[in-house]
């Protein structure tokens, strides 16, 4: 080959690429091409949609501006409950999942029952559909009528979300713990640190740093699944949307809810992408 060969260099310069459009290497020509192809794509899809036989009816029942305007405030109000649900649940999930992950990582035959408990918990709650857990626990546990147990749907919503998601998140933590090379623990123990100290000061800090992107991924899942708590009768945004929808004989309220969820989860998704890209760059830098 002759002439300058910028290709290998450019392929290493991940940081200079656009984050929004990672497929574009830069340069005016490729930018123009990507713009044109996107435009053509949107026009074709739009034409298919608008040209379909029942488009006018669909437009009226899903994209009705008046209904949108009228129901928006109430659904936003309900969405406040979704936000509360996932904020409270997340604060509970992070430590509970860590506890389960650590229980599962305990070595030695003495801890067999504790390990077993953690495994059964993670298997059962990951294995059941979330909607089923919400029905069974959300209606069943308060139904027992145990004195002192709250009846509020919000409380049971948080409990079920926490139980389901802690099972997933504990596996994320565990993968992180397993990814730390045993020589790190050996080095810590060789200095006289106890097993717990080694875990706390050496293994866990490295493990948690490594799993932040997948943790945020589960966080996105949690945000969406707050809508399931509406099944318990809690009037959050999804349930508010169904109420408004029945009242207006129109599906537009669901569009409102959908847009609200996207407004919440999309920034998080971009943040995850950015963190993943950054940690990949750091890893490459570490190899150097």
């Amino acid at each position: 080959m002759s002439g300058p060969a910028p290709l290998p260099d450019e392929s290493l310069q991940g940081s200079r690429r656009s984050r929004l459009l990672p497929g574009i290497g830069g340069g005016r020509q490729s930018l123009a091409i990507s713009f044109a192809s996107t435009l053509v794509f949107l026009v074709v899809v739009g034409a298919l949609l608008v040209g379909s036989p029942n488009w006018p009816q669909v437009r009226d029942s899903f994209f009705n501006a008046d209904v949108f305007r009228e129901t928006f405030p109430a659904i936003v109000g309900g969405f406040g409950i979704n936000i509360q649900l996932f904020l409270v649940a997340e604060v509970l999930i992070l430590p509970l999942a860590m506890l389960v992950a650590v229980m599962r990582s305990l070595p030695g035959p003495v801890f067999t029952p504790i390990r077993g408990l953690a495994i059964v918990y993670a298997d059962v709650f990951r294995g059941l559909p979330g909607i089923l857990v919400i029905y069974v626990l959300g209606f069943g546990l308060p139904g027992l009528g145990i004195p002192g147990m709250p009846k509020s749907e919000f409380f049971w919503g948080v409990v079920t979300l926490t139980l389901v998601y802690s099972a997933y998140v504990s596996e994320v933590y565990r993968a992180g713990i397993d990814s730390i090379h045993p020589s790190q623990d050996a080095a810590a123990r060789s200095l006289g640190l106890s097993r717990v100290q080694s875990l706390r000061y050496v293994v866990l800090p490295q493990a948690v740093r490594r799993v932040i992107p997948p943790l945020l991924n589960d966080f996105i899942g949690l945000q969406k699944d707050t809508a399931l708590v509406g099944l318990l009768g809690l009037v959050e945004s999804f349930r508010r949307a169904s109420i408004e929808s029945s009242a207006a004989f129109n599906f537009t309220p669901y569009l409102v809810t959908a847009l609200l969820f996207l407004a919440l989860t999309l920034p998080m998704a971009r943040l995850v992408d950015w963190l993943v890209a950054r940690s990949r760059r750091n890893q490459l830098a570490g190899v150097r």
Partner: protein
Amino acid sequence: MTADALTIEGLHKSFGKLEVLRGIDLAVAEHEVVCLIGASGSGKSTLLRCINLIEPIDRGRIVVDGEEITARGVDVDRIRRHIGIVFQAFNLFPHMTVLENVTLAPRKAGRLPRAQAEAQALELLERFGLVEKRDEYPDRLSGGQQQRAAIVRALAMKPDIMLLDEVTSALDPELVAEVLDVVRELAAGGMTMLIATHEMGFAREVANRICFLDAGSILEQGPPAQIFSEPREERTRQFLDRVIRAGRL
């Protein structure tokens, strides 16, 4: 000779069916520097890891400063605080600065207050030329600097004996000398050391005694001059011939 700092009697260790140590007997006196030489797989590293109680032993006993550390029910964390080990791959904690690496064990295992642990760490870092690197993370250091930091980290626990496991094997050739200098200084300061090494010239210079390990037992031991010049065993001679042909002696 002074009292033994370390005594090993009839030490056996297997990994599954593979017998790695087949009856090691060894006594190391206080202030003595003993170098373990031998081919890869002869059991040098495993021996050091057994002494630090990283590997549980199958048979035999290990006595450090008069206490049998392989006895049932000893507090292994307490024992390890007195036995420093430095690994081939450094094993620094990547999420901590050099200073944090060095002060972690004195603070958490030795229960020193932070200020005291840091003062002591800075003194050691100063002595080994790393004080200006104290706030750097390990990945910003050269291999030689990382290994020196790992040695300082072990020294911060004020060990009675240091175990060095091929501490220069992972280094680029031009970085070996700075680490060996540190080990020389430790030897000059009277540190009791058991050193597994492939650096024969260094072993000859720094060791009071050389042990040649072959297939999990000490085949021959003696002063460096005797081992390197007139080995008694045929296998020692063969090993040294190979080392010489590789240009390592």
